[in-house]
């Protein structure tokens, strides 16, 4: 058998090492294992492939996927990734490091996390952000737990039915054993009482609408509960901030900040809160410090909240987060800047409104919902939603995604070109024509 490129042990090395240990074979390293458990069978793995064969196999698999032009969102948005991001995030000093436990040789990771936290605070208007969690929906479940931990003798969480389905399903899954009682309804503010620890509302809802949250925080706070807003961080660059709406906690998924769709991940959840809740925030937090010579540096801080110190009394069980994806978001926001983010949202706004108006003109859809939107919108087709979706799929579009309540969902990011948008409109018109026959 050829030597595996990633295992440097030669036969001679193995003999030398065994001799130092005082053993004569590798098997003796497992002499303490009940021998009936040693696996003698053949492993159901392919015969080892070379690197070139491995790449060819992956290319073969990739070729089995259909290349579609994406006109849908619902929690994953097809924004452009500037080339700088993969180039820098691939630097192995970032990529192959672990959690920055040894701060003296981890200032790179620690500093970009501090920058990430600062940028999330800038977008949300809130005081403190963590170093990221797994994704937006798990961030929401963590926020629900934070609400319970931050209020006295309250364990109910009221969540809006207008949250994205992917967020609601995770909230529900965590609620089964997770220490909070969840009620999801169209108007959670009407169900406030003394048992409610927190209310979770969307900042942009599943219909794509920018929500008017006037009075929400006052109502929630008057009932002694906390307000959590689920946000699209890209849109937050132009939206009224969670802090301005009076939210206590803001969560969401950083995926729209330049992360490829990648069949669902890796993305990164973000969490930000007001200062008084800081010690209930889960996950890693990086803080500024100084070394013995007074040089500014950065460290993991407030670790008394975390599982490796507090064990079962920790604010969360989270250990690994999505550090490298936080770097992606940080690079993205650095490149875009305030002006780029504004222009990006304007481009999405123009293109999505252009598409919506053209779609309405086909006569295939009911009158749209009231309310403004940035890039995502829903329409209720007068025909079978699945048939429309399937028709467009056959033409190479991932569009008119069947959504709840008989709607189909569309999303137009800055990536969609005039030609792509026109082609989608032509396909819908063609469908309308065929339906009319």
């Amino acid at each position, binding site marked *: 058998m050829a030597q*595996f490129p*990633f*295992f*440097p042990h030669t036969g001679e090395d193995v003999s030398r*090492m*065994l001799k130092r*240990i*005082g053993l004569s074979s590798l098997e003796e390293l497992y002499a303490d294992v009940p021998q009936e458990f040693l696996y003698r069978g053949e492993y*159901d793995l392919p015969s*080892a492939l070379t*690197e070139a064969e*491995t790449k060819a196999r992956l290319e073969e698999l990739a070729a089995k*996927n*259909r*290349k579609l032009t994406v006109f849908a969102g619902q*929690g994953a948005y*097809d924004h452009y990734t500037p080339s*700088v991001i993969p180039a820098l995030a691939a630097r192995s*000093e*970032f990529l*192959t*490091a672990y959690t920055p436990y040894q701060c003296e040789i981890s*200032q*790179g990771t620690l500093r970009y996390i*501090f920058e990430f*936290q*600062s940028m999330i605070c800038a977008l949300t208007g809130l005081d*403190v952000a963590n170093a990221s969690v*797994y*994704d937006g929906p798990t961030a929401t479940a963590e926020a629900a*737990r934070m609400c319970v931990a931050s209020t006295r003798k309250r364990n109910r969480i009221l969540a809006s039915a207008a949250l994205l389905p992917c967020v609601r399903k995770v909230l529900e899954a965590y609620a089964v*054993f*997770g220490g909070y009682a969840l009620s999801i309804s169209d108007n959670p503010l009407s169900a406030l009482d003394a048992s409610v620890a927190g209310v979770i509302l969307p900042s942009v809802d599943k219909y794509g609408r920018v929500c008017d949250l006037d009075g929400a925080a006052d109502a929630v706070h008057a009932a002694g509960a906390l307000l959590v807003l689920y946000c699209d961080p890209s849109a937050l660059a132009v939206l*009224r901030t969670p802090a301005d709406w009076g939210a206590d906690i803001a969560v969401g998924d950083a995926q729209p900040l330049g992360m*490829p769709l*990648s069949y*669902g*991940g890796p*993305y*990164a959840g973000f969490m930000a809160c007001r200062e008084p809740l800081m010690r209930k925030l889960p996950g890693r937090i990086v803080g*500024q*410090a*100084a070394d*013995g010579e007074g*040089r500014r540096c950065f460290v993991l801080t407030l670790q008394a909240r975390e599982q490796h110190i*507090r064990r079962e009394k920790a604010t969360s*069980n989270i*250990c690994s987060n999505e*550090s*490298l*994806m936080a770097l992606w978001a940080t690079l993205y926001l*650095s490149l875009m800047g*305030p002006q*780029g983010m504004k222009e*990006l949202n*304007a481009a999405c*706004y*123009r*293109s999505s*409104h252009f598409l919506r108006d053209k779609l309405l003109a086909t006569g295939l859809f009911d009158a749209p919902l009231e309310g403004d939107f940035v890039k995502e919108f829903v329409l209720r087709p007068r025909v079978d939603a699945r048939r429309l979706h399937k028709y467009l799929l056959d033409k190479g579009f991932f569009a008119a995604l069947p959504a709840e309540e008989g709607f189909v969902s569309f999303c137009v990011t800055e990536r969609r070109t005039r030609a792509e948008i026109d082609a989608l409109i032509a396909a819908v018109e063609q469908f309308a024509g065929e339906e009319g026959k």
Partner: protein
Amino acid sequence: MSYYDKLIFELSKNGRRGASVPRGVGDAEIPFGAGTLWRETPPALPEVSEPDVVRHYTRLSQLNFGVDSGFYPLGSCTMKYNPKVCDEVPALFAGLHPLQEEETVAGARELLAETERFLCAVTGMKHFTFSPCAGAHGELTGLMILRHYHEMRGDTARTRILVPDSAHGTNPASAAICGLEPVTVPSGPDGLVDPEALRPLLGPDIAGIMLTNPNTLGLFEKHIKEIAAMVHACGGLLYYDGANLNPLVGVLRPGDMGFDILHVNLHKTFATPHGGGGPGSGPVGVTEALKPALAAVDGRVSAFHGNFGVVVRAYAYLLMLGREHVRELGAFATLSANYIKESLRDKYKLPIDSVCKHEFVFDGLLDDGAREGVPGATTLDVAKRLLDYGFHAPTIYFPLLFHQSLMIEPTETESLETLDEFIAVMRKIADEAAADPMLLKAAPHHTPIGRPDETEAARHPILKYTPAA
């Protein structure tokens, strides 16, 4: 080179930008800035050019240390080399939307199905979910499965779970978050779970046990057969914490030892990069009997399909590993750990003398140099001194069983020459400590910064950038 200390915000200058953005299609009037829904002032993001960004983050990367920089013997973290081809292939799947119909993502589904088959082969389990995004997320998901299993059988009184005192902190934390009360199982003098100490803790309220095998001391829980029989007899399930799966790969399988549920850290065992603390991937496997309970959580604990891009990397690695090299993986990792242990035991305190698996724990220096008026060198001091010599430090002060824990895990991707260099440096540090512990206490001397004042940082937290007034 002098220490580069800037934040990206400090490079900002009004009017600069680092990205170009299209205008969009159509001429809808942009409402931003007017009315109640939109923000009045733009977010305080930096305004920098593309060269500014590239140089800043390149400099930050140079302040970091990764597996590619050098030996990273961080115990329980399995910092093995990450093959480069594995980083290249996820881009092939970058354009797939997670809600696409199965027939349009046949390649991605085939990849997941095949990875599931490979993981079943290596672990002896029958079904996997890829929803969990990290190891602790896998633990939580696994415990949800465990609880669903009991509830589906109408067995609702099982609210306590056994966790050895040597377990990773995530175990009791995951249990608590899943509504289970962790019950600590004390380790015996040999560092192992003693079935006799376990027996009185068992009963109809026990949902199961979370075991790390080999445990965090790197010792194989050799009473596993008896433990499995006892826990199963009382109606509980066995959860396997995959954090320490590495030494078993290619040698034995948790499924054959009686475990019902496990998670695998793809970012440890199957060579995907740790990314400075994620993204990881923590797929959870179960036996046939737990398939319905698995279905209750599959696809529900994260937004879509978990960290698919990480699974792609692990799949590529498994293809290269194949049925031949899988046989070498655990054995080489175990060989390397024992080699270091035997080469240093005359300089460092070995609390339990036994063949270890992929890692082992010293309890500080044999001679810490302490004398009248001079405090001895601690494990922290040894760790910091290692940084001066170009190595990452081992895991320190864990497990909690000893006061000066120094946990070393070399993995199977380090050469004998690297191990010998590390051993030589560890011996030199031990000699330095004996002669002059203050040299270690002042370490590191050659890193970009010295030891920070972490207490002060926690007392007066500064957690975001604020422009100077």
